[in-house]
């Protein structure tokens, strides 16, 4: 038995969110990943973020492809429907699900193999369609379940656990997403929860496809000297370009927030992302600036993190399609079926 339900013990005195749920209500089954896996930290950050946002569990859908990363939807929000699809195809499931019910809050969890190799096509097209969802890539540069092959995100010159040197250029998830026209792109590190939780919240509040690349070290196959996705390497080379925080609708935004390089980005639902430029050179609203900055720092081996690009006014899939506001799956049959008279009428033209 490789599935373990987590005992749901409600402790007295637990803090409840706005809809009366505790952090425990946002947890899932026990993780079967390796002890110390970065993915488990990301799961914990997701639990924290979703709880803080007071999202109703039944409105969430958790979707994934195949791989270590794709196991994680089982480990958070047991009250949400989950969908562990096939390798690299999570975006198409998300697109269809959110086409059928636009009120659902889509959370797609993918990995570097899942998104940058087998699923590279769907990764690009879900961005192009701007499907309103969080697209989270748990990026460790390695194939874990098949025991340590390089993935497409492995940096040129980095070495495998067995000592092989990767000769090929890497596919950079954030630069790719930005250049393909993504409306929200961020990068985090599984080992920095303080940065990650607000990034996740901002990504969920964003009305479009929010790509979040989270470097998540593989303790078993990619945490050695020579890896550029290890805990040690990340701690040394991580560079914060921005800091983001999500302020919910109706909450007061204090004037002191505007100090320095902090400015608000207002979302359509009334919430606000408070965006702070840690590096004054950085402008996350201009695509060319973001790409140039990423490239300059990549050359020095630095890994830029934070909210890297945002444009909350790109029309999402339903705006592009001009779909009705009511979820299609809730439409009454009589509002969908033209009826017998219409059928007689339309066939006049076929005679």
């Amino acid at each position: 038995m490789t599935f373990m339900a987590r005992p749901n013990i409600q402790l007295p005195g637990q803090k409840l969110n706005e809809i009366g749920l505790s952090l425990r209500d946002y947890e899932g089954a026990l993780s079967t990943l390796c002890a110390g896996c970065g993915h488990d930290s990301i799961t914990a950050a997701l639990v924290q973020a979703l709880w803080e946002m007071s999202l109703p569990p039944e409105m969430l859908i958790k979707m994934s492809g195949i791989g270590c990363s794709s196991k994680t939807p089982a480990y958070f929000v047991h009250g949400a429907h989950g969908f562990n699809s096939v390798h690299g195809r999570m975006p198409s499931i998300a697109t269809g699900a959110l086409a059928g019910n636009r009120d659902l809050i889509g959370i797609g969890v993918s990995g570097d193999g899942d998104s940058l190799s087998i699923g590279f096509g769907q990764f690009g097209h879900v961005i192009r369609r701007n499907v309103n969802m969080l697209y989270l890539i748990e990026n460790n540069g390695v194939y874990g379940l098949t025991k340590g092959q390089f993935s497409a995100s492995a940096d040129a010159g980095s070495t495998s656990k067995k000592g092989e040197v990767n000769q090929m250029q890497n596919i950079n998830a954030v630069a790719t997403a930005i250049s393909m026209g993504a409306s929200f792109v961020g990068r985090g590190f599984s080992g920095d929860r303080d940065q990650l939780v607000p990034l996740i919240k901002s990504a969920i509040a964003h009305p479009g496809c929010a790509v979040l690349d989270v470097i998540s070290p593989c303790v078993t196959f990619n945490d050695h000297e020579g890896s550029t996705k290890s805990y040690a390497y990340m701690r040394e080379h991580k560079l914060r370009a921005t800091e983001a925080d999500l302020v919910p609708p109706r909450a007061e935004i204090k004037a002191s927030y505007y100090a320095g390089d902090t400015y608000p980005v207002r979302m359509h639902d009334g919430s606000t992302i408070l965006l702070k430029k840690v590096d004054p050179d950085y402008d996350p609203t201009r695509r060319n600036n973001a790409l140039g900055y990423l490239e300059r720092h990549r050359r020095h081996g630095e890994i830029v993190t934070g909210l890297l690009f945002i444009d909350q006014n790109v029309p999402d899939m339903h705006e592009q399609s001009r779909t009705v506001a009511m979820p299609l799956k809730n439409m009454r049959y009589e509002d969908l079926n033209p009826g017998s008279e219409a059928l007689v009428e339309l066939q006049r033209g076929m005679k």
Partner: protein
Amino acid sequence: MNDMQSRINDFVLKIGTVNGTGSASANGLLMKALFRMGIPVTGKNLFPSNIQGLPTWYEVRANHKGYMSRCSRVDVMVAMNIQTYQKDLAEVSPGGFLIYDSTWPREKDLNRHDITVLGVPLSKMCNENFSVARVRILMKNVMYVGVLAALLNIDLEVIKKLLQETFASKPKLIDANLKAIMLGYEYAQDNFTCPLPARAETMGDNSGNILINGNEAIGLGCVYAGATVGAWYPITPSTGVMDSFSAYCERFRVDPETGDLRYCIIQAEDELAAAGMIVGANWVGARAFTPTSGPGISLMSEFIGFAYYAEIPTVFVDVQRVGPSTGMPTRTQQCDTLMCAYASHGDTRHPILFPANPNECFEMAVNSFDLAERLQTPVFLLSDLDIGMNDWMVPELEWDDSFTPDRGKVLGPEELAEMDRFVRYFDVDGDGIPYRTLPGEDPKGAYFTRGSGHNKYGGYTEDSDEYQEIVDRLLVKWDTAKTLVPDAVLSRSSKETKLGVIAYGSSDGAVIEARDRLAELGIHVNYLRIRAFPFSAEVLDFLHEHQTIYVVEQNRDAQMKSLLMLEANDIADRLVPILHYNGMPIPSECVVTGITQHQAGEAAA
């Protein structure tokens, strides 16, 4: 010429042109004029996989008995394409007629003495009467309509009325078209003996019939079924399905107040994604479908197996074309039968519906959503290019306003409130179909959908017994499917016989006509038309009742015969394949020849 004398309302007219020259509207005009005269007609497009410049033909069969299949005879050929002149000339049946543009001389050695060749200076007349180059090309086609109207006795008043309807908003075009038609008509009257022995005469009443192709009927059926999400990747010959769905949605699914759309059509990046999208949409409870052709099913197979194992309703429309591989995209076959029956790796099997004409395309499109949701499994609607892209005369489509869709076993918050615990894959009712819940409704209904090994609780498993329990239950569901799919259609011969014939889909017309001709030869056969897989009980009964069963189909490998043998291997030696797979729709002669030859062989043995 004797053969031609009995050809009143019983002839084949074939027109060879160059694609991209606007001949489709001229051909449509001819077809519809015959239809309005009350004559049963069918029109077949024989076209290249090309946009402009290659040969294309349109074949109209008028038949007072109502035979809808192709027959390999050409009574009147209009050879407008110099590239194919030699081939077109050779194809005319003895005693037949060929019309060509005599503006330029023909090669002298191209001639036949057993047919009548009629030259009409079409280009010359067009150049003398129309000044714009593009108009001249278009009017040359309209002009042969006028020539044929005189030669085939097509009612000019009907043609005029059709022109007025077609160009109601552009009166100038009516005059130009009419002028071209009259020029052709008068030339033929002045120079030939009109009408020809093969000709039309106003007959019955076609007011209860329509002209439609199968793709349009499926798109319309999806609208009536209440489908709201359509995901697809364009592929010949299925594209017309989504074009039709889109057009009818624009007509019927726009919110009158806001102008917002009560549907969502997604042009996917490939067929893999299109399949994933309809799996996702159906998972949340929206009716969703994808139209494709054989190459698309190959790509979708990964998700087809997923949907089978995870038990998600999905509707796959396969408008078959010639395979293998890219094959011949604009030619027809029934070559995906076996693939659809067992698509995807592992032990999988899927219900298939086989419409035989556009009327059934409409009905079965609706039916396929009901079946998919009732059975929580992928369902295939297996059409083909012949049904999908050709013009068929069928009885008017009907709709019963009391129809309510069968959404299957779905538990909502009210039902969940009365339960201790929801379990996704329990067979509560013994029919092999579990209950499902939809995301967005109730946290109590939450479960995990996965293509990996799972137990009846929906949990991940690698336990042998837990795994096997699920795949065995899926077989129980398969038995339930046999009771839900459309029945086969049995047509008994008026004489007692031990001979049977089985066909499905677009092979139906050829069998109907062949049975009449065989009866004239003293060979009587009972006919069972299969309309679905898995086979319902009457299919097995039919197999056991007959000594010899001819299985007619349009593929090389006798795929339906293989399916029948798997289901009833004790009668395998009684099945005789009759196959036609060159890409053209099966003609009735193929069935007549196949059965008579086999019978002659049996008599000799």
